[in-house]
């Protein structure tokens, strides 16, 4: 765990302690379990987003993909009697294909990722609404998938605490993603491409493939999150389901140390970022703050966090500009500036 992650953890503990002090209900098992369930679902697509942000891209269609794949999933198992294992596989495959298309448009057609995924955001939302004719998709009475429901939305008692399965899924996803990003060759390539695509290419990295893979991974994980959300909410109104989720994902990634310029960020950071966002949500509910202020509180806390981080980084540079610099070099001077801003 690096310094940034550690300070984020401290911030979460402080905010948590304050909330618990004002309203002890924060620590009730039911509340914690529900908050964790949210963390699990939001964390998975935030990690998805982080993959794309690390290569210097952006994915804005997360929320719309969750809506579209969610309604298709419910439709498949409820109305078309598709075996749920097959349906899960189909939905994940759909997510992978969406990622592949985004990645191809960005790298082969050289369209800016913001534009590609903004169009995705609009298209998938529209498709979701058209697919259900703007009606709510849900499980009718009697429709029952006990195994699937238990797997996705169930909870298991661990030492007396009802641990949501979504959070277990997050732990597995985060673990695999951590190894992939921080220990594997592919992870190195992701960071290298995000840091300096040109230098990566000159080092023999097929940067286009690496970038496409990031979008594909993002699409697959988002599809997985879409299934969890569908099973959790049990009914999806395609006009609003998952809206703004891409912003939660980006916020969590940024809180977790990802730079929108690419090449930075850690999985632990992204998970902690998700936790902080959900604690803040919870805080708004528990402290009696009007829920209309929900987003405003989140925005303010993120802004303060980023400002504080910037301030600390700058101070570190001003206090010890020559630290860790064996030789002085003309070359290093401009770099200093780049790092600060």
């Amino acid at each position, binding site marked *: 765990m690096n310094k940034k992650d550690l300070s984020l953890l401290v911030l979460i503990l402080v905010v948590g302690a304050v909330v618990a002090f004002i309203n002890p209900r924060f620590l009730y098992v039911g509340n914690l379990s529900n908050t964790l369930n949210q963390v699990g679902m939001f964390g998975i697509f935030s990690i998805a987003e982080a993959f794309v942000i690390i290569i210097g891209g952006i994915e804005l269609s997360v929320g719309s993909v969750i809506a579209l794949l969610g309604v298709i999933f419910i439709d498949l198992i409820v109305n078309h009697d598709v075996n749920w294992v097959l349906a899960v596989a189909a939905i994940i495959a759909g997510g992978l294909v969406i990622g592949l298309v985004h990645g191809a448009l960005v790298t082969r057609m050289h369209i800016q990722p913001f534009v590609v995924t903004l169009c995705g955001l609009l298209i998938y939302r529209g498709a979701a609404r058209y697919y259900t004719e703007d009606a709510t998709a849900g499980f009718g009475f009697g429709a029952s998938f006990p195994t699937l429901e238990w797997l996705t939305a169930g909870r298991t008692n661990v030492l007396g605490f009802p641990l949501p399965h979504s959070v277990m899924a997050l732990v597995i996803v985060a673990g695999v993603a951590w*190894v992939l990003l921080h*220990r*594997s*060759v592919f992870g*190195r*390539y992701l*960071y*290298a491409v995000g*840091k*300096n695509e*040109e*230098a*990566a*290419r*000159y*080092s*023999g*990295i*097929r940067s286009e493939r690496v970038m496409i893979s990031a979008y594909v991974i993002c699409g697959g994980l988002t599809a997985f999150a879409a299934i969890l959300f569908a099973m959790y909410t049990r009914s999806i109104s395609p006009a609003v389901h998952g809206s703004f989720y891409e912003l939660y994902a980006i916020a969590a990634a940024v809180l977790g140390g990802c730079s929108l310029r690419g*090449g930075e960020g850690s999985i632990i950071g992204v998970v902690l970022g998700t936790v902080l966002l959900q604690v803040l949500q919870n805080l708004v509910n528990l402290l009696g703050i009007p829920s209309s202020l929900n987003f405003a509180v989140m925005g303010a806390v993120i802004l303060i966090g980023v400002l504080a981080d910037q301030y600390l980084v700058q101070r570190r540079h001003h206090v010890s500009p020559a630290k*860790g*610099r*064996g*030789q*002085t*070099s*003309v*070359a*290093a001077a401009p*770099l200093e500036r780049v*790092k600060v801003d």
Partner: protein
Amino acid sequence: MPEPFLELVDISKSYPGVVALDHVGLAVSPGEVIALIGENGAGKSTLMRVLGGVVEPSGGTIRVDGAERSALTVAEAIAAGIAFVHQELNLFDNLDVAGNVFIGREPVHGGPLRLIDRKALYARTQPLLDRLGADFAPDAPLADLSLAQRQLVEIMKALSLEARLVIMDEPTSSLTLSETDRLMRVIAGLKADGVSIIFITHRLNEVMQCADRAVVLRDGRMVGALTRAELSPAAMIRLMIGRDLKSLYVPPAAPPGEAVLDIVEAVTDTYPERAVSLSLRRGEILGLAGLVGSGRTELARVIFGVDPLRGGVIRLEGDPIRAASPRAAIDHGIYLIPEDRKGCGLLLDVSIAENISLPDLSSYLRFFLVNTAQETENARTQRERLKIRAPDVGTTVGSLSGGNQQKVVLAKWLSMRPKVLIFDEPTRGVDVGAKQEIYEMLRRLADAGVAILMISSDMEEVIGVSDRIAVMHEGAISGFLDRSQFSEHNVLQLAVGHAVEMRVP
């Protein structure tokens, strides 16, 4: 000759470790055309930046209309009537011609609304166009203009600022012959109006054509001035060289072997009508000399698979290869140490160890994961071998000096099995000590059987390190030199496109 209005006296400029200008003096009279010549890195651009107020000299005085100053600011330089036409033009291609000429000084109307007075804008631009005999309208979008026309826009901008001195940095380097002719006429016209011109160029025939005198810089010193009567290509080349080279040369352990890399009629995007052929032999260091922009880097990029090969064949050990990407070239054992070390060679805020392992990560695998212990160990070995001065291999590359950064780039490739190594300006921004170490490493690699292509603009390096020199001029090889023919004179002759009389000493 009228009195000079601008004088530079004893101007010096030093950067840490480098003296860029060493007591240079220059006086400019109205209506004078001065050619400023010298090799790459002789200090021409620095001198002009002093004039433009961009660089503050470390010593000397600047006298403008009799007033003495130790330095100019950009605003003062503009106020003094000094205007710059940069090599890479500073124009906005989303504006029209008039908008570019009067950028920041647009005539306005409408009181506090400060709307742009288009009519006045175009009316003021037209006379400037007429003066230069330009064939485009004031409202022509800049994006539609050719490079030569854009240059005229820059000159118009200078004239609209009442410039008395226009400095042109290699104005003809990207122009066609007829465009160059027109520029020469424009220069003559400005001269007739009493505007002075300083132009930096590598093309000696242009100097012959339009300069009143030539000033020659070498290693930051002014080594000579030639009057119109004294101007001749031979005289200029003599002044540009005129120094004894320290001998750096270490002969190869064995005579060069068979050809490893054959480039047959290779065509690059930059010079579609020119083809390059050369062959690189095992164990030799082939220096590739030429002026900046002669197509050397482009050739390297094509061999390394960064840019597509537009024609011709590249053969490695006899077999034609098609390097469609750097990955393919690397898999063939062809490695490039690029010119732009920071942009293309390294990940600056990543550790030395991770930079070194990057091209060959798959050989550091243990259960699909990167074996960091092995990675660190290899980086340590390379650090010893190349004498990379850094506290630890975990140090980020960005904090190292230029020489040590270059050694890290080299270490990337030396951890693998090079057949062909292409160095593009291997010692640019590298201090003297590290330079020597890099040269020794080059020789050791060549002796170990690697074929080395060394692109260099540093004459001392080309002559001191190479076993053979190929010289490029405007996208083609203008000649090869064997060691017996090595001289700065010969390299420079070929670099400016003249033939070399093959005298064997």
